[in-house]
């Protein structure tokens, strides 16, 4: 099973030079730590920044510089600041190439649920609905099962959804999967030491297994 850091590390391998990327809160934020230095990418923060830099040093903290998770940040070289309408104009307008976000559930047709548990948790969708409705490439970082062991990869989402048919790829603590255009989770890679059988038993939605499934490789 992968740790959160390893999920982030695996997702970072999907990043290509030249991309503008939006990272969601939680595991997706960690992806920034693993993007190879030789790739030229720009991280977008929905609260109005292109070019998120590293976290600040202690004496360099500026309350007027935060990311979407409200963490203190710095500006990368060549960054630009703008208002929230401009920020979502670039998101909806298709200018952001890659969106990486967390999920509570994903369905086999690529629906995602991550904003509400009726009667229990009401945090709101933030920018997630705008992002999933707009981005061409959406990668989800998530745990394969809930704490009580129930699969979060389902035939249909049971929670209120954030967007329909939008997820392209999932990296969980057990596997890398792609969403088939015809429906189903296509198993691409296994976490080290995790068997296809285990992934199958923990995937409630349709799992498509074609040929040998390699283990993920970490550098």
């Amino acid at each position, binding site marked *: 099973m992968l740790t959160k850091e390893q999920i982030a590390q695996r997702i970072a391998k999907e990043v290509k030079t030249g991309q503008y990327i939006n990272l969601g809160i939680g595991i997706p934020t960690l992806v920034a730590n693993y993007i190879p230095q030789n790739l030229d990418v720009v991280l977008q923060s929905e*609260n109005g920044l292109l070019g998120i830099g590293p976290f600040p040093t202690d004496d360099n903290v500026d309350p007027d510089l935060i990311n979407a998770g409200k963490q203190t940040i710095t500006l990368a070289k060549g960054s630009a600041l703008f208002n929230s309408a401009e920020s979502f104009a670039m998101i909806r307008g298709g200018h952001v190439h890659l969106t990486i976000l967390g999920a509570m559930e994903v369905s086999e047709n690529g629906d995602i649920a991550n904003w509400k548990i009726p009667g229990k948790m009401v945090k709101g*969708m933030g920018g997630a609905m705008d992002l999933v409705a707009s981005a061409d490439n959406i990668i989800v970082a998530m745990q394969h099962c809930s704490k009580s062991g129930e699969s979060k990869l389902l035939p249909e989402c049971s929670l209120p959804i954030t967007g329909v048919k939008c997820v392209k790829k999932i990296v969980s603590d057990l596997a890398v999967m792609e969403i088939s255009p015809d429906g189903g989770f296509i198993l691409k890679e296994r976490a080290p030491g995790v068997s296809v059988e285990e992934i199958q038993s923990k995937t409630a939605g349709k799992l498509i297994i074609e040929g040998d499934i390699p283990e993920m490789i970490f550098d």
Partner: protein
Amino acid sequence: MIDKTVKNAQEAVADIPSNCMLMMGGFGLSGIPENCISAILELDIDNLTIVSNNAGVDDFGIGLLLKKRMVKKMISSYVGENAEFERQLLSGELEVDLIPQGTLAERVRAGGAGIPAFFTPAGVGTEVAEGKESREFDGKTYLLESWLKADFSIVKAWKGDTAGNLIFKGTARNFNPLMATAGRICIAEVEELVPAGELDPNQIHTPGIYVQRIFQGVNYEKRIEQRTISR
């Protein structure tokens, strides 16, 4: 040049009545109008509807207004850092309209720009789409969303001049310039207020036409929610 200055936050918010609609700039606690929130807390008003991306935290920002039960309804996109908010919401004491952040920003922008409605892809196929008109453009479905306007919009800027021109700093800009345009009366509090003519016109983010009242704020706390340091 029209002088927009008022003495302080107390004077700026004095005529805000009960049952009105307020917009407040800020993302999390960054760029929130701290002075005006404190001054509103001292007013004997309630049943406010507040449009703000977030709802503060339990003991700072809009959270203070919630705790004093001055708020009837919040229109926000994300309220995750406020336990009192969540309690009032789940118990039915507080109404809330949760809307996608980009839709919220654009509805406010539209309100200030005289655009009554627009189509957006955010929320198609979700609860957000319920009861809304949808239409297909180039094979993709979009929702019709309407403008948002307020009786008062309250914003916080870094620098401003007596004519109401505003300059924001860092990511404290966020919703502030949008909300400035969509309030019938816009109140701007700034860290540094200078005479008209001293700010470089090339650098102005919000032109003074949108701002009716401006004052230099005091004692900014600028609380940080997630102080995160490089190792």
